[in-house]
């Protein structure tokens, strides 16, 4: 299962609550230490790990607790709540609307899986009967248009791009206009990979953004990313209006905690996860259900106010 290892280490830490005869500060510290270690091994940003730890300690304040409070339950709930908060529970994402064009722009670091994910996203909606199409606004990466073209052809999804044009903003705008005129509902714009240290490429991304005025910007993140995730995610959010996140390559052994926790820097929810190289290796993502599964809990929706 996705993030199974993290789930196991958190569950294991929480099980200490069951075996300790009394629950005091010392036991809580031990549990929190183990949970923190699990989160760190899963690449969650070290600052976020610390704040999760502090928040839980604040919720479970032994001096303030009324006598008779069920401390085990309280700690469980606090952990659940913090994980949900880290993963952006309660944030809403853009919902495409039928019968009108929805322009969706994909952005992200080099090699994160944008082009692959564009097709998966198009395929996801096409299968449900939406009119979807793909535009390649990556004029930089060698073979980028061929890649998108081959993927789109396999999925039988119309595509637009150019081998000769070098201006991604122009290609994107032309493609969007054409597909709008043809009444497409989901118009997906794939862009080149870039990172925050490349100022010129960030400007280029803003130009594409201005040219197509997207309804939604999706930030695509590789699940194996480490501690640099926070600053990169923040920089993307600052440059364009990132509305949601897709985390890729979760079929590998990556814990994905860094990518998942970067949600707190983008204030954008994870809407899908990528679990393979094929078109249908793609799953919608629901934070609460995910954390429940992660912690092996029953239905906890009643326990938190989202």
């Amino acid at each position, binding site marked *: 299962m996705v993030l199974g290892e993290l789930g196991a280490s958190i569950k294991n830490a929480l099980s200490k609550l069951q075996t300790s005869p009394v629950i005091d500060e010392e036991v809580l510290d031990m549990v929190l230490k183990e949970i923190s*270690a699990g989160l*760190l*091994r*899963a*690449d969650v940003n*070290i600052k976020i790990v610390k704040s999760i730890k502090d928040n839980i300690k604040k919720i479970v304040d032994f001096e303030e607790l009324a006598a008779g409070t069920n401390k085990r339950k309280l700690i469980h709930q606090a952990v659940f709540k913090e994980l949900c908060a880290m993963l952006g529970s309660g944030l809403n994402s853009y919902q495409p609307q039928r019968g009108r064009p929805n322009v969706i722009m994909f952005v992200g*670091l*080099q*090699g*994160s*899986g944008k082009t692959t994910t564009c097709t998966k996203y198009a395929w996801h909606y096409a299968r449900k009967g939406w009119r979807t199409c793909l535009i390649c606004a990556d004029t*930089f*990466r*060698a*073979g*980028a*248009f*061929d*890649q*998108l*073209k*081959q*993927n789109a052809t*396999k999925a039988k999804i119309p595509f637009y791009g150019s081998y000769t044009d070098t201006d991604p903003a122009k290609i994107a705008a032309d493609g969007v206009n054409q597909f709008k005129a043809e009444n497409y509902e989901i118009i997906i714009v794939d862009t080149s990979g870039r*990172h*925050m*240290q*490349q100022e010129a490429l960030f400007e280029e991304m803003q130009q594409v953004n201005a040219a197509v005025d997207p309804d939604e910007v999706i930030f695509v993140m*590789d*699940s*194996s*990313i*480490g*501690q*640099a*995730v926070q*600053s*990169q995610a923040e920089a993307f959010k600052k440059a364009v209006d990132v509305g949601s996140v897709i985390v890729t*390559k979760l*079929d*590998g*052994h*990556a*814990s994905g905690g*860094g990518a998942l926790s970067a949600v707190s820097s983008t204030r954008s929810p994870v809407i899908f996860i990528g679990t393979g*190289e094929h078109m249908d290796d793609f799953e919608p993502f629901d934070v609460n259900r995910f954390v429940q599964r992660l912690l092996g809990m029953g239905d906890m929706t009643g326990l938190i106010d989202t």
Partner: protein
Amino acid sequence: TSWLRSHFGTARELDDEDFASVIPRLREKLITKNVAVEVADDVCKSVEKTMSSTKLGTFDSLQGAVEKSMIEALRRILRPKREINILREVAASKAKNRPYSIVLCGVNGVGKSTSLAKLTYWLQQSNYSVLIAAGDTFRGGAVEQLEVHGRCLNTPVFQMGYAVDPSAVAKGAIAQATKTNADVVIIDTAGRMQDHESRMRALAKLIHDNQPGLVLFVGEAIVGNNGIDQLRKFNQCLHDFTPMNCPTRGIDGLILTKFDTIDDKVGAAVSMVYELGQPIVFVGVGQTYQDLKVIEEDVVVSALMA
């Protein structure tokens, strides 16, 4: 008192209390700099071990002494235990009228094909001719991507299209290079997840069938804790999936890409070398052909300790 102890003591041996006052912060720093958790722990343990048998001089500060020992430990990890001199090996192979072959492998999207192009450019600077082998017969656009590089670099690309056995592509390429007197064959491979057994077997087959001069693992500097798992399993699979009666072989060295994306979070370099014990042959520092550099251990160590 520990501050006093550490600043005004007489020459004395260090104890657990001393370590507890400085090591956790250094460990945290390493993790913040993207050193994998288990590697950071090992480094800290080894520092404690070395320090516990040394005496702290009267005028040494505890912090300074421990830092110094950590710098030494990090240098020791990064210092190559084995040298890989590609140019010398190419020359030796050429003297025997045999093309020297290099296989690049790694997980999806890390920069294998781009590094292949950079290596080609670098070899051309030394007047060696290169044949590029399009051994990724899986991912859409992979062949065209290399053909673009081939055109830009004015170097031939050997390809057999998609959905063919990559090992056969490598074999065909080596045969063609022998015929045309190309000095080096660089074989691209499809990205694959380290747990994907059938794909890992196919990689092992390619390597055992073709016995390349060099097998390089391409990883990203931005990778988190998953990096060492990738490396461990790639290396292990190459050994485990060796056909009977064949000498086993693993990964000879590393290319670590995307150094330009991580600022001072250079920890993956330490983690990966620590895991494999083989050198980082090159680092990738950008997306142009010139962006292939030799790693400077001291710069990495300074960034980690800053």
